């Protein structure tokens, strides 16, 4: 249609291309910069690292160059992936348990004040006691190491889910509650149509925190158990390499732990946007 218009009009009106729109162009530029700048910064840091190690002839058992770490990563790919899978399994299972347990208990808390008042101290005690302090005990009492590690990671990830679910379920607008009373909503309807949607933003915030905490819990528990058990998680690989003075392998395992944390963060952030993006203030992008 636009071609026919330009043909019929000999006057030199250049049709505005979408890229000519300054607002659109700015937005695209911003997107490009958002990707480009971090990539450049990280590349620069890695290059500096590589250069300084090479220039000062730092031995690889003190600080290995990024290229050596990458090579170690490739050479030990199979065994490192096995360890990574162990840690992933541990993290995801503890997160799943934290979600199911935290949501269930959070709902009970929201329904009953007396139960909350009696059980909340236990949750707080579990939360404030450092996991490294409890882990040895759990490792003694739980014969299977994997389960012991799972319990440790779960304790760390559990609390934010519990506390945010309980707060979220109570945060429903009072007038909306009255409205549901007025229309004689059943308790189930009230839960499904009012309380759960009101709690979702709180829950998603907790999920972002708990995802990271589950990984931390898994790694810390592995460290504590590392000397005792025959584990193959990433943290025990770091520990093991440190005993053998294999610094490049330590860095390679460390890299995988960070990568895992980043993936967890990206997935939970994406999930949060997918669930809340169309309505909640925290996820809405404002046009300026």
């Amino acid at each position, binding site marked *: 249609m636009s071609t026919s218009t330009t043909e019929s009009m000999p006057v030199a009106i250049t049709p505005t291309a979408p890229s000519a729109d300054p607002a659109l162009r700015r937005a695209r530029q911003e997107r490009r910069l958002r990707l480009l700048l971090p990539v450049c910064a990280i590349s620069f840091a890695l290059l500096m690292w590589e250069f300084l190690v090479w220039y000062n002839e730092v031995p690889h058992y003190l600080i290995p160059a990024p290229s050596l770490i990458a090579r170690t990563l490739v050479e030990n790919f199979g065994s490192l992936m096995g360890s990574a899978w162990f840690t992933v399994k541990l993290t995801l299972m503890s997160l799943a348990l934290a979600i199911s347990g935290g949501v269930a208990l959070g709902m009970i808390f929201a329904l009953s004040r007396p139960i909350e008042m009696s059980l909340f101290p236990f949750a707080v005690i579990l939360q404030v006691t450092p996991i490294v302090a409890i882990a040895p005990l759990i490792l003694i009492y739980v014969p299977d190491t994997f389960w012991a590690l799972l319990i440790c990671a779960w304790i760390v990830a559990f609390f934010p889910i519990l506390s945010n679910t309980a707060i979220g379920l109570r945060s429903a607008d009072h007038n909306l509650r*009255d409205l549901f009373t007025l*229309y004689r909503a059943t308790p189930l309807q009230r839960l499904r149509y009012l309380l759960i949607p009101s709690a979702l933003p709180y829950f998603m915030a907790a999920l972002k925190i708990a995802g990271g905490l589950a990984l931390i819990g898994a790694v810390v528990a592995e460290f504590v158990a590392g000397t005792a058990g025959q584990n193959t998680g990433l943290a025990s690989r770091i520990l093991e390499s440190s005993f053998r003075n294999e610094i490049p392998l330590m860095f390679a395992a460390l890299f995988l732990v960070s990568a895992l944390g980043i993936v967890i963060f990206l997935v939970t952030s994406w999930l949060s946007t997918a669930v809340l993006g169309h309505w*909640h203030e925290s996820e809405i992008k404002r046009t300026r």
Partner: protein
Amino acid sequence: MTQPAQITLSHVEKRFGNGTLALRDMNLSIREGEFVSFLGPSGCGKSTALRMIAGLLEPSGGTITVNGREAGDGGDVSFVFQDATLMPWATVFDNVMLPLKLRGLGRAEARAQVEEALGMVGLTKFASSYPRELSGGMKMRVSIARAMVTKPRLLLMDEPFAALDEMTRFKLNNDVLELWRKQGLTVVFVTHSVFESVYLSSRVVVMGSRPGRVVHDLPMPEGPRDEHYRTTARYAETCRIVTEALEGTMDHVDINH
């Protein structure tokens, strides 16, 4: 005049848990088809009275009958809150559908009624918008559509337009009047604006505070209510009478604080 009373309050008293006496010995009877405003300063118990009629609050003394039953049992009552009180996670359509959904109706069964209610307030085109995309006046109209979707006999409104600008308020005043006329509703309207109460109501109940009580029960002149009515001498005169009645309820503390 011959219709039976739809709402009866007799010797109603409300004392809150903290000991505040919010309402003392309120006696009132509202017939079907009336448009009654509760007018008074803040703290006069007008909202409390409305919430008790809705069954959202229990009176601590006296009885309230709505549609021949105890308040809260009658059903067939809708409530519009001061803020629009919409669910931010649901579209306009889903917000309006809520009362029907809570009655167990499916989306397909409810569609016609929801669309009719949206049509009443002129928001058919915004069915799939989210509340955050609407202006304050539009949100309030969604709230009214939600109240109307069950075709209630009684509409209770708690200072619904207090937070809106004057142009929007005038427009919504006319919308409510039209609904009242066309649907044969009974409306109980809580407001602190003399002009609004005189414009809308067939009867203004003036209330005083400390403790909340009914001071005057003033019938309003009959006749058409439209933009022209706001400029008539009769409207001005009625407003003056109601203002004097309202000022009579306040001691100097209320005025000079």
